[in-house]
Structures are given as C-alpha cells and as structure tokens.
C-alpha cells in the first residue's frame, strides 16, 4: 500500500481546481434558481414599467388571468374565451369558500399583453368583481432604466 503511493510512475491528477470550479458553478446555479411558481407565458408580451419592481414574497393564493393581444384569456395554461372566465372563476370561488376563505381576500393577478385592449382588461376586472374578487395586481415587466 505504502509502495503504491510513493510510486513516482503513477500519475496523480490534481483535482482541486476542478472541484473549486464545480462548487462555484453549483453556488451560481443555486442562487440563480427560482423556486417561485410564477405563471409566465411566452404568448404574453407584458408592458414595461420602471416601477414594476419584483415583489419580495409570493402573493398568497393568487389567481392568474393572462390576456393575449387577440382578446383571449390564458387560465391555468389553457386558452379560453373572455366569456368563459366567469365559469372558471365561479369554480375558484367555490373552492375558496369550501376552504373557509372569502373571495375578497384573494388577489387576481392580471397579466395582460401590452397590445391588448384596455376595455378587455376592464371586462376581466368586472367579471372578477361580480364574483366577489376585489384585489387586483396588474403585472408589468420591470424596466431597468433609461
């Protein structure tokens, strides 16, 4: 055993730089990784705003409604019409009431495309209001500056 380690002919690779690099990479990926389950969709081009700073913590029990520039709504990854939103919200509402929560405590996140019609955004808000939701969050992409 002792002979083997002292054998000058055996080539020993110095692992230290490689391990250093690998740990650096791991730390980088760990920090960059995002565990939040933010609903994002490539079909939506959010409007930019300098004030849309990322929120510190995730919104509690949000309902995300995404409005495309064609006037249709993406709800839970599914493309639905503006008229169908009411039915889906009714279901959300009954789930909330079953869980002992009032709909007015939930936040509806509206991710509307920058080219969508404002009237359609307001229609969505109105449908939500009729179902008892009253907290809204209009989402925008953070614009880092001029």
């Amino acid at each position, binding site marked *: 055993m*002792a002979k083997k*380690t*002292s054998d000058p002919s055996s080539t020993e690779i110095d*692992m230290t730089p*490689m*391990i250093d690099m*690998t*740990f650096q*990479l*791991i730390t980088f*990926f*760990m920090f*960059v*990784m*995002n565990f*939040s389950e*933010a609903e*994002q969709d490539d079909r939506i081009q*959010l*409007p*930019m*705003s*300098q*004030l*849309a*700073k*990322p*929120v510190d913590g995730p*919104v509690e029990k949000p309902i995300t409604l995404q*409005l495309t520039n064609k006037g249709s709504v993406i709800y839970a990854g599914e493309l639905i019409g503006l008229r169908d939103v009411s039915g889906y919200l009714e279901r959300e509402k009954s789930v909330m009431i079953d869980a002992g929560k009032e709909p*007015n405590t939930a*936040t509806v*996140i509206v991710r*509307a*495309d*920058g*080219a*969508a*019609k*404002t*009237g359609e*955004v*307001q*229609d969505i*808000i*109105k449908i939500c*209001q*009729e179902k*008892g939701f*009253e*907290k*809204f*969050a*209009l*989402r*925008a*992409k*953070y614009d880092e*500056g001029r």
Partner: protein
Amino acid sequence: MAHKKSQLSDKIDINMTPMIDVVFQLMSFFMCTLKIVAPEGDFDIRMPLGKSASAVVDDQQVPPIRVKLSAGPDGSLAGIAMNGNPIADFNELQRKVVSLVGKGRGPDSLADKTEVEMDCDYGLKYANVVRAITAISGTVQDGQIVELIKKIKFTPPKAGK
C-alpha cells in the same frame, strides 16, 4: 527537500470519487431546473364592486383626480386629460400629479388620501394604461422609487369595441 517528500507521502489519501459524483449530480440538477425568469412587478389595485371613486362620500376624502386616456382608431394613445384639462404627455401628467399632492408622504399625507380614477377608451392599447399608472404612482429618483398616488381605480368599462 527529502524531508518534505517523506511528509507528503504520509498524507492520507481521500477518495474523491463519491464527492465528485454527488457534486456533478447537483450541478446537472441545478442546470436542468434553471428557468430564466424575467423580473416582474405588480401594481396593486383594490376595486370592490359598486363603489366607484366618486360614489364614496367621506369627509376625509379628497376629490378624485380623473385621468382620461383616449384612443385613436388603431388603439394608440390619442390624448390625455386630467380633470378635463388636456395634457401633452406622461411626463407632464406626472408633474401635475406631483404639484397636486405635494412633497408630503406617509399615512395621512395628501398623496395617501388622493385617488385617481382612470377613464380609458375600450380600444386603447393596455401598454398606455401601464405607462399612465407608472406616471401617477411614482417616480424613480437616483434609483429609488418615490411613491406618489397608490389608490388607482378604473371607471366601469364602456360597452362596444
């Protein structure tokens, strides 16, 4: 020199293989699960049904500022008006809001009590509304956000497209 060499051979040989295995596993896990998320933020709006800003009568309430955004035929912004007075652009809108609410901030300040009611044309592109909300709700000075009016509401949508 010879003394140093003998010391080296006395060193305990650690088997690195399992550690490197685990490290690579972790690295590939983090690499695969990496999702590049664009930073996004929210504008919070509280709008209960049947209570438009003008309907609430309260002694403490400051009369709401009405911002009208009108649209051209293609949905682009055709004009801005604040309490009926035409305004050239969003920078001027922001200056007017700043001059209205003053410099005071805090729970009981004018900026906290003032409400803005947005009246937008149906076909207006939504990006313009976000620009207006940005102008009304705050400014960025030296990288710091200075908040202006936080209470923003919409008038009920108008029918028709």
